[in-house]
C-alpha cells in the first residue's frame, strides 16, 4: 500500500513539476487518436519539432480512434481543453460540422497539394485508399475489379470490418455504394457468401488475415509498405480495382473554444511542412498531402489512380440508411 502511494505520488509530482516549469509558456492542447502518440507513431517527432519553434508547450491527449476523439470533445462541450483536433477523416466531417465545434482555419490552399481535397474548416494532412490486401505467394491471380471480387468466381475468402464499429468497414460500405448504387444490397448478399467473418476493428481483421484465415482483407493500399519497412517482406500487395478506390483523408481543425487560435493555426501550418509530411508517410503509412520525398518502399507498391468519395452532405443524409441496408442484406 505504501509503495503504491509512493509510486503514484512520484508520478504525480513529476507531472506537476513539468507543468510548473512551463507555466510561463502558452500551452497548445491537441486531441488525437492513440496510435498518433504511440512509440511507432509520428506524434513524438512532431511534438519535439513544433515545441522547438513555437516557444510553447504542446500537450497531446490521445483517445481510442477518430470517433472517440470527436465524441470526447462533444461530451466536453465548451469546457474542453482542446485547441486542435487531429485525426478525423472525411467520413466524419459531416458529424463534426453538425456538432459545431470548429472555426475556419483561414489557411490558404498550398499549390503543391497531392490531391484536390480542401476544406475551410479542416486541414488535410495525409490520405490513403481502402484496398483489399492479399499474399502474392498464395494468390497468383487477384481480383482486378470490385465486381470481380463480389462475383467471386475464384472463391476468395474475405475478411472485413464492421461498418458500425470501424472506419475501414464504413469505408467499404461507401465504396460498395459508390460502385453499386441501388444494387448494393444484392452485391452485399454475394459478398456474404464468401465472407469468413466481420470483425469489430481493423486489428482483429488484419491479425486474422496474417494468421492465414482469409485470402483478402480490407485494409489500406499502403499496408504493404509497413511490411516492407518493418520486416523487409515483399509478399503482401494491394489488389487494384478498375472502378477505383474509396479515399480516406485524415484531417485536423481548430476547436472553436480555443484560447490559442494563432498557435493552433501555426500548428496546422506546421503539419504541412515537408519534414512532418514525411513523418506521416513513414509512420502513419499514408500518402502525404503535399508533394514530398517518399520513402523507397512507396515506389515498390501498386498505386491507385482513380479515387472515389462521397460528399459530407451525402454521407450525413444516407449513412444510417446504408448501414441498415447492409445489416438486412447480410443477416438473412
Amino acid at each position, binding site marked *: *500500500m505504501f509503495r*503504491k502511494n509512493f*509510486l503514484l505520488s512520484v*508520478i*504525480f509530482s513529476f*507531472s506537476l513539476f513539468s507543468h510548473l516549469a512551463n507555466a510561463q509558456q502558452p500551452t497548445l492542447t491537441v486531441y488525437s487518436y*492513440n*496510435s498518433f*502518440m*504511440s*512509440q*511507432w*507513431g509520428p506524434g513524438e517527432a512532431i511534438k519535439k519539432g513544433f515545441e522547438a519553434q513555437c516557444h510553447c508547450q504542446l500537450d*497531446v*491527449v*490521445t*483517445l*481510442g480512434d477518430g470517433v*472517440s476523439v*470527436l*465524441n*470526447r470533445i*462533444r*461530451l*466536453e462541450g465548451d*469546457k474542453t*481543453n482542446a485547441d486542435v483536433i487531429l485525426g478525423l477523416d472525411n467520413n466524419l466531417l459531416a*458529424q463534426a460540422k453538425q*456538432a459545431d465545434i470548429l472555426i475556419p482555419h483561414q489557411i490558404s490552399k498550398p499549390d503543391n497539394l497531392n490531391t484536390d481535397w480542401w476544406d475551410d474548416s479542416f486541414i488535410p494532412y495525409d490520405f490513403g485508399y481502402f484496398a483489399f490486401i492479399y499474399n502474392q505467394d498464395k494468390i497468383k491471380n487477384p481480383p482486378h475489379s470490385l465486381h470481380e471480387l463480389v462475383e467471386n468466381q475464384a472463391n476468395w475468402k474475405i475478411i472485413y470490418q*464492421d461498418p*458500425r*464499429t470501424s472506419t475501414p468497414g464504413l469505408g467499404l460500405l461507401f465504396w460498395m455504394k459508390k460502385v453499386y448504387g441501388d444494387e448494393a444490397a444484392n452485391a452485399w448478399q454475394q459478398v*456474404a457468401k464468401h*465472407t*469468413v*467473418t*466481420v*470483425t*469489430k*476493428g*481493423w*486489428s*482483429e481483421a*488484419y*491479425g*486474422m488475415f*496474417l*494468421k*492465414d*484465415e482469409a485470402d483478402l482483407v480490407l485494409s489500406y493500399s499502403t499496408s504493404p509498405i*509497413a*511490411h516492407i519497412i*518493418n520486416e523487409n517482406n515483399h509478399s503482401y500487395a494491394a489488389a487494384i480495382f478498375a472502378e477505383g478506390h474509396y479515399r480516406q483523408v485524415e484531417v485536423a481543425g481548430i476547436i472553436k473554444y480555443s484560447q490559442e487560435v494563432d498557435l493552433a493555426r501555426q500548428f496546422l501550418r506546421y503539419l504541412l511542412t515537408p519534414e512532418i509530411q514525411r513523418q506521416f508517410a513513414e*509512420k502513419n*503509412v499514408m500518402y502525404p498531402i503535399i508533394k514530398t520525398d517518399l520513402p523507397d518502399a512507396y515506389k515498390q507498391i501498386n498505386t491507385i489512380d482513380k479515387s472515389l468519395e462521397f460528399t459530407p452532405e451525402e454521407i450525413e443524409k444516407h449513412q*444510417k440508411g446504408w448501414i*441498415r441496408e447492409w*445489416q438486412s442484406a*447480410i*443477416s438473412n
Partner: protein
Amino acid sequence: MLKFRSLLPGISAASLILIILSSALLAIWKFALQSGNLTIYFDSYILHIIWITFYQAVLSTLLSLIAAILMAKALSLVDFKGKKLLLKIMPITFILPTLVVVTGLLSVYGRQGLLSNICQILHIPFSFSIYGLHGILLAHVFLNFPYACCLFYQTLQSVPIEQKHLAAQLNFSNVTFFKIIEWPLLRRQILPMAALIFMLCFSSFAIVLALGGGPKYTTLEVAIYQAIRDFDLLQAALLACLQLVCCIAFIGLMQKINRIDKKLTLKFTQTDYRLPQPKGLKIVSSVLVLIGGLFILLPMLTILFQGIYFFQFSLLTFSLQQALLFSIIIAIGSSIIAMTLGLLLLWTNSRLLINRQPRLSNGLLLIASLILAIPSMVLASGLFLLLFDYSNNTVFICLLMMVCNGLMALPFIIKNLAVPMYDITAQYWRLTQSLNINGLTHFYLIDFRGLRRTILMSFAFAGILSLGDFGVIALFGGQSVTTLPYYLYQQISHYQYKESIVTAAILLILSFSLLVVMDYDRTSKN
C-alpha cells in the same frame, strides 16, 4: 437477532456501488436530454439481436456448465503430475484480451492451425470452420468453463471425509455418491455461476463479431457501442437499460430456483479418501481430463511459444516497462478495492443468511454483480461526464481505472467467497456469539484465518482480471496511462504483429506468476 451493526458494512458497500452506477447512467440521460438529440429507434432488428444475444448466451452458459461439471468430477477422480499446475493455469483464460483469445483459438482451430496441420500429416481432410455459432460457443466455453471448473473442483474437494467413509460403509456406488453427497453441494454453486457466465456472454462483443462469421450473430452490446459512436446517447442509455433489465431478469430467475441450504460442509480433515472406483470410470475420467486440459492449454501454449520465439531484448522498451508498471499498479489497486467491497458485502450477507433472510441476501449479491450488465462504454462515458474536470490528471485516471476494474472483479470475488464465508461464519456462530467476538476480531480470527487461501486467491484473481481489461482507458485518454492490453493494440495498429505476440505472452506470464505468488502456500498442508 439481526443487528444494524452487522447490516452496516454491506449496506454501505452496496449503496456505494449503486451510487456509482446510477449516477453514471443518469449523467448520460441528462446530457442526452440537454443536447436535444432525441432520436430513438426501436425496430425489429433490435428485437432480433436481443433474441440472438439471449440464445447464444444461454447456450454458452449451458455448455460451459456441463463441461465444467464433467471436468471437475473427472479431476476429482484422477491424480496426475501437474494437476495443481493445471488448476492454477485454468482461470487465466478468463482475463485474456479478445485479440489474444481469438489468435490463440485460431492457432489451434484455424485454417492453418494446429488441428488442420495434424490432419494434413495424417491425410485427413480438414473441413472444420470455426466461424459461426459454434465458433462463438467454442470461445465462450474456452473463456468461462475453466473458471467454473476450478470452483466446482474446490467444492467437490470440500466433501468431508466422514461423509466419504460413511458412503463407503454403506456401499454407495459412484452415481449414488454423486447424487446424494456431491450434487447438493454443487447445486449451490451452479446457479450463481450460471448467472455470472450468462452475463459475461450476454455482454460479450468483439469475440462474437470476430468468430460469428458475419453480423448475423451480433449482440445488444454492438448496438450500444454503435449508438455511442454515433453519439445517439439517449439510444445508448436506453439500450443499456434494456440490457440491464434482461440480465436482472435472468439473475432473478436463477435466484428463484436457487436456494442456499442451511447445511454445513467443511473440510474437517485433509486426508484424501476416495470411494473404490470401477476401472471404466477411471479411464473415462482420464480421457475427459486430457481433452479438457488440451482444450484449455493448447491455445495458451501456442501464444507462449510464439512469444518466446519472437522474443528479443530490444522489445523491452521503455513504453513497455511503463505499461507493465501501470498495469501492475492498477491491478493491485483494483484488487484492494474489489476485496474491500466484497468482504463488506459478504460480511453482511453471511449474517443475513444466518438470520434467515435469503431474499435480502439475494438482493445484496445482485447489486454486486450489476456492473457486468452495464456496457463499459456506457459506464465510462457516464463517469467521464461526471468527473471530467479531473480527466487530465494521471493519478485520477489511475484511481478511476482501479475503481472500474475493481467493480468488474467484484462479482468474481463474491462468487469465490460467498459460500465459504457463510459456512465458516455459521459454523462458529454460537461460539463467537457467546464469546462476544465481533467486528474486526471476528474477521481476523474466523474469516481470514479460516479462509486465507481462498481470500488470497480471490485477491490475485481480481488482479489478473484487471490486467486484461481496457474498457475505461479508451475514453479517458491513454497518453499518460498505458496498460499492457492497450500497448498490445497500439503495436498491432502499427503492424507490429510479431512484437504484439510477445506482449501477449508477457501478459500471460505476468498473470500466471501473480496467481502462483498469491497461491504460494507458506503453511504446510497438514
